Every structure is written in C-alpha cells, then in structure tokens.
C-alpha cells in the first residue's frame, strides 16, 4: 500500500559527505512540517521495526533533540543533536550523533524544493573528520544488514552511473 513516487539515491560526492535525494508526492510545507515534532517524526523516522521509546524535540535554532529507538529485540538506540538553522519551509540544518559512538557528530542539511506540487528532498550529511566518519561507518557495519551480490551489483551500477 505504499504510494512511492520516487526512488532514494545515495551518493558519496566526497569522503566526508553522504548525499541522499528523494522525490515525495506532497507540497514542501507538509514535508517540512513532518520534521518539526515528535508527533510527526514518530510516524516515519527509522525503519518500521523500530518504535520510538522516547522523544524530545525543541524545534528552534539552538534547540536540542533526542530520540530513543527500540528494536524488536528490546534493544535501545539513542540519537541526539541540536538545531542550527531553520528556514521554513525550505531548509533545516541540525547535528546528529549516535550515542553509541559519542563524539562522532555529523551536520545534516535538509533542503526541500517544490516543483508541480511535488517535493524534491536533498539530505546531506557532513562529517567533521575522517575518524568521526569512520566510527559511523563501523556502527553501520555492526548493524550488519544482510547483503547479497545482487545488491553489490546494484551498488556498483549506482557508483558507475553517479560518475
């Protein structure tokens, strides 16, 4: 029953950045609004199998946020950060830190552009240092998503077409 209007693209334009783009079938005011409170975020942020165990969002420049995810095994994962820039309805800049790896803070920039009632979303993650990014890489690996050679194949295609 998914109403998917766009595919997610993930690129690594430099060794400190990750950029994702996605088209969404809604005006950007709504997409922006969906990022502004726990009530909204808990409905979509993270994979389905995780639920929000805790959430605090102080949506203003300089305000803090913290979300605790609970997985199906009862394991909890906490994330936190601070809002640095809020420009409704087009831009949000905030910091992101996984508490499992304190100190590895990335700066996230969300840009929303509207065309014909659809929103083109660009999410950029910028890591401060190579070491910090490495920590994030390691945590991603520990999560150990099942991979297959088909996926590897797709990933390489993507890398090739991104060049």
């Amino acid at each position: 029953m998914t109403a998917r209007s766009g595919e997610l693209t993930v690129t690594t334009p430099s060794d400190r950045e990750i950029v994702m783009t996605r088209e969404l079938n809604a005006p950007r005011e709504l997409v922006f609004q969906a990022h502004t409170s726990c009530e909204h975020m808990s409905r979509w942020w993270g994979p389905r199998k995780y639920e929000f165990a805790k959430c605090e969002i102080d949506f203003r420049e300089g305000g803090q946020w913290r979300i605790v995810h609970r997985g199906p095994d009862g394991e909890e994962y906490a994330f936190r950060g601070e809002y640095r820039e809020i420009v409704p309805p087009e831009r949000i800049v905030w910091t992101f830190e996984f508490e499992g790896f304190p100190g590895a803070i990335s700066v996230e920039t969300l840009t929303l552009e509207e065309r014909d009632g659809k929103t083109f979303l660009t999410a950029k993650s910028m890591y401060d240092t190579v070491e910090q990014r490495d920590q994030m890489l390691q945590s991603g690996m520990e999560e150990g998503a099942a991979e297959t050679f088909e996926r590897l194949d797709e990933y390489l295609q993507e890398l090739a077409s991104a060049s």
Partner: protein
Amino acid sequence: MSTTAADLDSRFAALAHPARRAILARLKKGEATVTELARPFAMSQPAITKHLRVLENAGLIERGRDAQRRPCRLQPNAIKDVAEWAESYREFWEQSYDRLEEYLEEMKAKQKKERRKNDRKKR
C-alpha cells in the same frame, strides 16, 4: 580477517574518484589488463596505472602475478564491506522516506478536511 576503520577509510577514499568507480564497474564484468582498461576511458596508461595502484592499496582489486599482463580483478570481500555499510544506511532511509510518503498522504487528507470545515464556518 576483520576490517578496520582505516581499511574502510581507504576504500571510501578510493571510491571517491569517478574514474576509479568506472574501473570497478568495468572489472565487475571480469578481469582486464591495463591496456584493456585504458581503452574506453580516453586516459593514458600511466594515469590508469596510478588509479589502479590506489584501488590495489585500498584492497578493492588484486593484480595477477604474470609479469607481462598483470590482469586486474575485483576483490569481492573488500567491496562487500563497503556495500554492506552502504546498504544498512540506505535501508534506514529508504524505509523512513517510504513511511514519510505514507504519512504525508494522511497529512494531506487531514489538511483537506480542515479546509472544508473552515470554509463551512466562513459561510
């Protein structure tokens, strides 16, 4: 053999260049010599050789012992590590944005309903 953060770092750095990504995409089809790799890229052999050295140092490819040809081939495990990380990241956001799209439908419906209610009030 476990992968260290430094290994991953050199792999990502190696992948950051478009020519090297194109070389990997080509090697996915099978091993190739430097001459064969240089052909479609409009690049000199020394330039290709330089990129190959970066890929080899990052453990993304290996080169044959044959002194004359030294064919290059993918080192599947190394690329798997990179792809594995990229997959878990992608999975998180792919699912999030799919859910966001569903939620936006709900928000749109709610907005419409409220607008209708307000219009009635105005009349």
